[in-house]
């Protein structure tokens, strides 16, 4: 009997590495027991029992678990033991590149090429090391614009300050022809200002604060009712435009000696607002008085505009909120017209707001009487450009200050406005009689669109007689202002009497109207000469 065969020794079952890999992967991607996974992956002796694909998987798992050293050593071992296994070299090189070990990667590539002829020769696809496009510079622009808008809105709100807890919204029913304001009982916010500037809403501010102080004062210049529509407006359009320019310039000029610096604005409605800002709120009463004095000095020079001062109250009484003024810019809800800061309208509201960055704060400390027909400029803070103009043409400045009708013409010329026949006649027949008449007229008319130096010289050469009198000037311009009073031996008043020191000495003394027949004949002869010169042209055209 055969002895029973010895039982063969039981070989241990081959470990199921796939299951191990699967478990490790699951733990890693679920972020569970990571330390334990790392501990297992560090057991490098397992590698001896793995085939090349399994080694690669081991290295990937180590990489996934953040064990870069283990991954590198695994791949190194794999490449040493299985040099013909291309994926091993590839992943090892890539791992080194990713870890920023470029030199080691290059050396490894050389070794791989030694082991596998032609290794990497077909990796033709270019890999860019840059970001792959994308210019970041211009991304800033919208944010820079946003910051600018925020800064400008903050400035706007700092300057146009009213009652802290309330502002007003303008409403208009154009069909019914009615309009008005309703109070909004909360503080105005940047979003409201933005809506106003975009023309979506129109807001106004109650100037008096709760403590009856004011941070913003206004002189409101409205076109008189009679000139707002119809024939009167059409007839006086050029006069109104002239007075507008004059008004804007004079409010600023007259305000300066009083330390009241005006920011002029076309309100989009009936006229202009002149805004005065105070760094700290001031009591309403003295401000009101100062602005009233300023308006009072200017009022006699105006034919078409009425001036009103805001605030009108000294203090708040009862439940009233005091007067309100529409905020500048935005749209006037009644007329639909945009409001803008002078001198000109800007298409872009943010560009228009930049004017505010240079807006000066007024103070109530200095109370010199404003310059008017009788005033004299003392302690005036003058803009350098204006100062230069005054130094060069003191005669014109004197006339501008003392004679409102001529002042309007001078202002219009300086603003480059076209001159009508009457207006030009007045200028020649007044300024032309000054000693430096030629220089002054050229300087005045140069900005005018139709300026022709030869024609100016010619017209000056035709100048005869005496300066145009005040009465005639008022009639020609259609202004209804008081005449200036002169203590003069001359038989009639004319604007050059304001600046006698600059008049030509041999100025013939003659009355404004024709006093005898000889003069009348001479006048008629000159007129006929003038007409005759145009006759051939008239014939040709007819």
């Amino acid at each position, binding site marked *: 009997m055969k002895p029973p065969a010895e039982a063969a020794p039981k070989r241990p079952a081959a470990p199921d590495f796939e299951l191990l890999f699967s478990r490790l992967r*699951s733990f890693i*991607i*679920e972020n569970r027991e990571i330390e334990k996974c790392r501990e297992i992956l560090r057991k490098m002796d397992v590698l001896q029992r793995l085939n090349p694909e399994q080694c690669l998987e081991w290295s990937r798992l180590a990489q*996934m678990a*953040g064990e870069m050293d283990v991954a590198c050593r695994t791949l190194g071992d794999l490449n040493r033991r299985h040099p013909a296994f291309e994926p091993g070299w590839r992943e090892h090189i890539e791992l080194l590149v990713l870890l*920023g070990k470029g030199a080691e990667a290059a050396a490894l590539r050389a070794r791989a090429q030694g082991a596998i002829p032609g290794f990497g020769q077909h990796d033709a696809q*270019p890999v860019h090391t840059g970001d*792959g*496009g994308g210019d970041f510079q211009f991304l800033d622009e919208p944010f820079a614009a946003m910051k600018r808008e925020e800064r400008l809105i903050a400035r706007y709100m700092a300057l146009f300050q009213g009652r802290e807890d309330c502002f007003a919204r303008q409403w208009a029913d154009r069909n019914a022809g009615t309009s008005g304001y309703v109070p909004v009982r909360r503080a105005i916010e940047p979003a409201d200002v933005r809506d106003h500037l975009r023309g979506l809403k129109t807001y106004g501010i109650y100037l008096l604060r709760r403590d009856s102080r004011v941070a913003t004062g206004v002189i409101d210049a409205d076109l008189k009712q009679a000139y707002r529509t119809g024939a009167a407006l059409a007839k006086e359009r050029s006069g109104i435009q002239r007075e507008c320019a004059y008004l804007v310039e004079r409010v600023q000029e007259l305000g300066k000696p009083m330390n009241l610096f005006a920011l002029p604005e076309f309100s989009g409605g009936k006229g202009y607002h002149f805004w005065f800002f105070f760094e700290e709120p001031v009591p309403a009463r003295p401000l009101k008085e100062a602005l009233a004095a300023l308006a009072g000095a200017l009022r006699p020079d105006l034919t078409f505009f009425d001036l009103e001062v805001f605030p009108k109250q000294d203090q708040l009484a009862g439940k009233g909120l005091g007067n309100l003024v529409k905020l500048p810019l935005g749209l006037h809800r009644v007329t639909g017209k945009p409001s803008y800061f002078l001198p000109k309208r800007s298409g872009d509201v943010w560009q228009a707001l930049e004017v505010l960055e240079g807006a000066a704060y007024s103070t109530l400390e200095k109370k010199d009487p404003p310059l008017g027909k009788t005033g004299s400029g003392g302690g005036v803070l003058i803009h350098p450009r204006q100062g230069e103009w005054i130094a060069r043409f003191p005669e014109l400045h004197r006339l501008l200050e003392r004679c409102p009708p001529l002042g309007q013409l001078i202002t219009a010329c300086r603003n480059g406005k076209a001159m009508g026949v009457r207006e030009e006649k007045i200028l020649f027949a007044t300024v032309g009689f000054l000693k430096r008449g030629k220089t002054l007229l050229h300087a005045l008319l140069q900005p005018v669109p139709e300026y022709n130096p030869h024609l100016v010289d010619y017209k000056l050469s035709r100048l005869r007689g005496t300066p145009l009198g005040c009465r005639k000037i008022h009639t020609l311009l259609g202004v209804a202002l008081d005449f200036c009073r002169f203590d003069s031996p001359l038989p009639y008043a004319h604007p050059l009497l304001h600046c006698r020191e600059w008049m030509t000495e041999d100025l013939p003394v003659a009355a404004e109207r024709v006093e005898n027949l000889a003069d009348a004949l001479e006048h008629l002869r000159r007129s006929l000469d003038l007409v005759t010169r145009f006759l051939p042209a008239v014939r040709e055209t007819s």
Partner: protein
Amino acid sequence: MYVLENGSYLRKSGGNLALFRDGRVEEEIDLEHLEQLILVGYTSISGAVLRMLIRSRVETVLLNPRGGFEGRLSVDEHKHVGRRKAQYLRLSDPGFALETARSIVGGKLRGQARFLALRGKQLGVDSLLARAATIRAMERSALDPAVDLDIVRGIEGQGTRVYYEGFPRLVRNPAFTFKGRNRRPPLDPVNALLSFVYTLLTSEVLTAIKIVGLDPYLGALHLEDYGRPSLACDLVEEWRVFLADRFVLALINRSVLSPDDFVYRKIEDTDFVDEEDLKGKRPVEMKPATSRALLKSYEKWMEQRVKPPDGDQRLTYRGLILEQVRRFERYLLGELKAYQPFPWSQVG
């Protein structure tokens, strides 16, 4: 395909279309070879053109000025039937869906790894390089044919976690901090920005899907869910880093934004009834002016042009998205063997 810009006007010109701009003919478009017409923003067409487009069966898509889908001239969706049928059939096949999800996750992880590696080298931060290597390994793992869809989804989630763990090192503006990705609602400005831009980007992809004529609600990686545009959620993944993260980080690191550009709220009640409730209880959100500026900046960003690796014509980022969705459509129709997500590394 013609994309017309604001202010353009199309008129009939014989058998062609004449593109007018500022009263002048800019271009003549041959109707015979026109397959799709995309009208962007404030463009207009005459009635005659409308009839021509219908007769010629030209697919006409209307987009708003920001590129958002507004509508389509519905002639007869015979082309879409084929596309959608292919989409429904192929994405219902588990094997095909798994392959698609693998590609999508692979593309996303590749982008994340590349970005971390680039920045790690630029900034000299080794931890970013290590994270890049980790994510790259995950990408390889996701592409392993042995793994199933759940594992692919898990790898995508873990890869993203590793990426966002490295994200604080990418924020180089000391005024901002990032302590991890959070959303619904985002708890800090960086997360708020990321969420905002991801939303914009998803709607870009959604628009592209609608332009191409696919159904945005059936995807591969994202499960089908009521109201969720799963395909848009799938196809946006490959763009997150390239288009959204780079953009957000550029704004933060260039100090274009500051913490003052955000509104902060102390929220104690964190139970959100619905989306509106969630909106109202956001602990941090951009100020309205900041949102406006961000949108403008985003518009400029999306209008940037780059040369794609497989084309000669420079395309806007928006155009790249559309091209990728078209590629996906060809993949669904069987014209392409595999879907290759946007190859960022090959864009110069």
